[in-house]
């Protein structure tokens, strides 16, 4: 069974093996002379300063959450779009209600100016 996905499995295996083999080969071939300048974090040619782990603004999280919400909404709409021909006007109304609820939330965000970047 699942012959349709054998291609994907083979593709993934080859991709992973390709990375592993090329990393292994380059490790075997390259010279190995570490020093502090080489081991330093590359930061566009400048000397790096501070810690890499800085605290990001919470706004990024808002956009990630909004993305997640509409991502899940899309998942509901995909089977709906496939079966719309069979289900007819009722499904159209259901999807309209579904969308209107979330669109109301988006409008609210818009009016409250939460979506602006500042």
């Amino acid at each position, binding site marked *: 069974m699942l012959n349709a996905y054998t291609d994907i499995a083979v593709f993934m295996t080859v991709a992973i093996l390709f990375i592993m083999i090329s990393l292994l080969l380059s490790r075997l071939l390259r010279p190995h002379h570490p020093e502090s300048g080489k081991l330093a974090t590359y930061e566009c040619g400048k000397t790096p300063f501070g810690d890499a782990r800085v605290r990001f603004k*919470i706004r990024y999280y808002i956009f990630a959450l909004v993305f997640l919400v509409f991502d*899940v909404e899309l998942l509901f709409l995909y089977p709906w779009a496939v079966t719309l021909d069979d289900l007819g006007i009722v499904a159209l109304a259901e999807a309209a209600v579904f969308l209107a*609820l979330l669109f*109301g939330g988006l409008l609210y965000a818009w009016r*409250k100016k*939460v979506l*602006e970047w*500042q």
Partner: protein
Amino acid sequence: MSTTLLVFFALAAISLLAAWRVVTDPQIMHAGLWMGLCFVGVAGIFLLLTAEFLAGVQILVYVGAITTIILFGIMLSDVEEVQPQEPPFYRFRRRFGRWWQPALPLLVAAAFLVALFTIYGQAGWSDLQPVGPAASTPAGLDIPAIGHALFGPYALPAEAASVLLLSALLGALVLAMREETLRVFRGSPGSSRVLQPGSGMAGREVNAGETDHPGQDEKKEVGAGT
């Protein structure tokens, strides 16, 4: 051993290894990425069960969005802040020694396992009919069936899911607006334009997402309104 069983064991091994690394990796960022790999393994198992739509959902939502959210959450928090000053249940542990440390998780895991098997036992798996071999049919066979169920008999739960999503959206907005209120309270620049009843929606539409620097948006709004 059939190929399906072999693939299942490989996927289960990947998922379990990744899940184990999530809780043991000292780098919290790596732990988040291991969680993504665990989700990929679970997606493969869904695929083995011919639940193709669910596998797609797993990749799209869990690997794509949830992992991103988790990584964002890590980036948003000061890791030093998260580390507790003293280990949890410190006094309890000092008093009762260390014997309960492996015992308690084992107990919880065993109880969870028993609960899971009880629920699974009631599911009536023998009544289920296989949807059909996914090999001989084009991909996405189960999607029409899901669509019929979702917008037929299960229309109300689907709408309830919309309400759930709306509440998640509003929760995110409340978080954002609380930051906004804090800024008003501190009186930093840009706080004066948080709520402007005078300007119309058309001006805000153009404004959304374009204002990188506070102070420029006043001009932009006037320009967009004309």
